[in-house]
């Protein structure tokens, strides 16, 4: 008779996993060592009775997809009824499609952040391009949408990477976000000034940089030199 290695109870001969703890059962498996008075594992039976994270994700994806499809059909029909042809609905449909990607891709590709970015990064730029050309003219994407999109995405990727590689996360996360935002602001102003003034200028973003970078530096100093073991959870617990 099969024995669960965790629960140490006898199972049916055809058991392939323990119905109590869901541990897989192999024929050659027998619990080793002394019999502890209590199991080593911490189990909340109600968690085992509930849906797994993957099942919850699947249900949410299905619901969100159905809702998005209903919204897409509704805007298309309303637009056709009002104007007799697609006028504003392509904008709404593009936005719904982009929203679907933003919400669902992190769930579909859970645990693979680089893959998520490799889908969402180009998709976001493509969305901007689509919005630009829907009126029949391409007048702002190359000059504004593309560089601003790249700056935004670059800032997010750079900050995310730095946070991911930092071994101890605490105030340094705020510092990275602050520095990233300040640099992104400078980039945004450079692009805008090139487009509208014809030359690179730093005015309001210089103030942001002057405030943000020293603050970020101070937070880095606090994290790595003073607080050492600070964590966001401890500092901002409610």
């Amino acid at each position: 008779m099969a024995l669960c290695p965790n629960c140490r109870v006898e199972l049916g001969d055809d058991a392939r996993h323990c119905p109590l703890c869901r541990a897989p059962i192999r024929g050659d498996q027998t619990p080793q060592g002394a019999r502890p008075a209590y199991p080593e594992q911490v189990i909340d039976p109600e968690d085992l009775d509930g849906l797994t994270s993957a099942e919850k994700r699947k249900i949410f994806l299905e619901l969100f997809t159905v809702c998005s499809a209903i919204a897409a059909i509704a805007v298309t029909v309303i637009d056709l009824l009002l104007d007799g042809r697609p006028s504003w609905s392509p904008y709404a449909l593009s936005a719904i499609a982009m929203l679907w990607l933003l919400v669902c891709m992190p769930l579909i590709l859970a645990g693979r952040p680089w893959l998520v970015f490799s889908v969402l990064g180009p998709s976001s730029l493509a969305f901007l391009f689509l919005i630009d050309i829907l009126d029949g003219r391409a007048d702002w994407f190359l000059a504004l949408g593309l560089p601003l999109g790249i700056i935004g995405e670059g800032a997010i990727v750079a900050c995310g990477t730095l946070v991911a590689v930092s071994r101890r996360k605490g105030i340094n996360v705020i510092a990275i976000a602050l520095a990233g935002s300040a640099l992104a602001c400078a980039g945004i102003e450079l692009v805008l000034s090139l487009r509208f003034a014809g030359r690179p200028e730093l005015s309001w973003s210089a103030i942001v940089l002057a405030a943000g970078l020293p603050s970020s530096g101070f937070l880095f100093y606090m994290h790595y030199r003073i607080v050492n073991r600070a964590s966001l959870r401890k500092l901002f617990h409610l």
Partner: protein
Amino acid sequence: MESPASPEHTRRNLRLSRTEFLHGEEKWYVLDNAASFMPGLTGRTVTLVYRLSVNLDRTVRLPALQAALAAIAPRFPYYMVVLRRGFFWYYFEPAGEKPLRVSADSKYPCLNLKARRGGYLFRVRAYDRRIAVEFCHILADGSGALAFLKALLLEYGRTLGMDIPEAEGIFAPGETPGPEESEDAFNRHVRPGTPGPERVPRAFHIPALPLRRGQYRIITGRMPLGSTLALSKSHGTSLTEFLAAAYLAALQELFYALPPPLRAAQHPVLSLEIPVNLRKLFPSGTMRNFTLYVLPSLDTRLGFYEFEEIATLVHLFMRSAVRPKHIARQIARNVMGGRSMLLRALPLGLKDLAARLVYKGIGENTMSGSLSNLGEVKLPAALSFLAEGFAFIPAPSPVCKTKAACLSYKDDLYFSFGSLASRPELERLFFSRLAQMGLPVSVATNL
């Protein structure tokens, strides 16, 4: 001699003690008086869940246990329920087709039973040679849980192919539950006009750092019953009184071991809550709650107490407190309070709030610890071969931090501490005192 209650009161009590009602063809249940305020007290740590377990002479066979559970559960329809919120009160509804499965055991028992989330209020867990039932106090007290465990054990033995005859006092599948099994015995035995109990002072609480959230330390000591009874007798006490005296002595030692400034900031009264099974004082066959408590205490302002003195004080206190007239005062306070129109008209949210305040004031604030003795577990001979030992684990208490529960079976006494304190100081003081008195104590823990 007690004066008889008027026929009108008796009729009203009988009517109000009924908890089972019909809505169309579906049953629903009112909570008993003790349980009616409990749901509002429950939370992540305050689960109000205690455990009774039996250690077998062989490894648990899960398919047989599952089959036994499926066979015996319908015999206890008043446990096959889920908690629902009404506008004024909580109530129970039959769980219907909700599956009742044996659960895996955990390193930390008695936690994570979310009473207010529509699940069963009890569960059966299996590990190695142990079958455990964990009951939320909203559903039943220790006597009810023990009856369920015995019935489950008997059915499990039969499912394994053992020849076990019907045994008196152990429920079997197919029987029809008696109406008294789901009665609210508090409402049946209340005597209107009885004065409430006197107020008791706030008690000392162990100023220990808590364990990490989600942890619960269990230490179970096993000692020979005969020697412990003989020792109790030599001190002129019953077993419960002797254990309570040892518990109070350990609390006193802990109190005096505190640094003087910290000690001065504590409440000076050391009180021990001892639940009393009221079925022994008032006739009732209820399987719901029918337990109240008495509070022997030591006032440290009067000086240090030697063990002999504590044993005498506890003995005298218990003799006077565990009497129907004394307990009737608590019943009157609780039941008549619940019957007041003002309280009944409060919406449930406000009742929950009031329950927390009342429980704090007359409950947890007045006790330094708790010792629940379920008494002797008796099994028919054919079944006692299967069961090697039992254990009774108290529900976690963040305020008292450490509580104790015990029972005896065959020749052994099983005494378990359940604690949310980071260090097992009280347990060490208690068991080392018993060991110093010559009792061989073997201890097992989960942490």
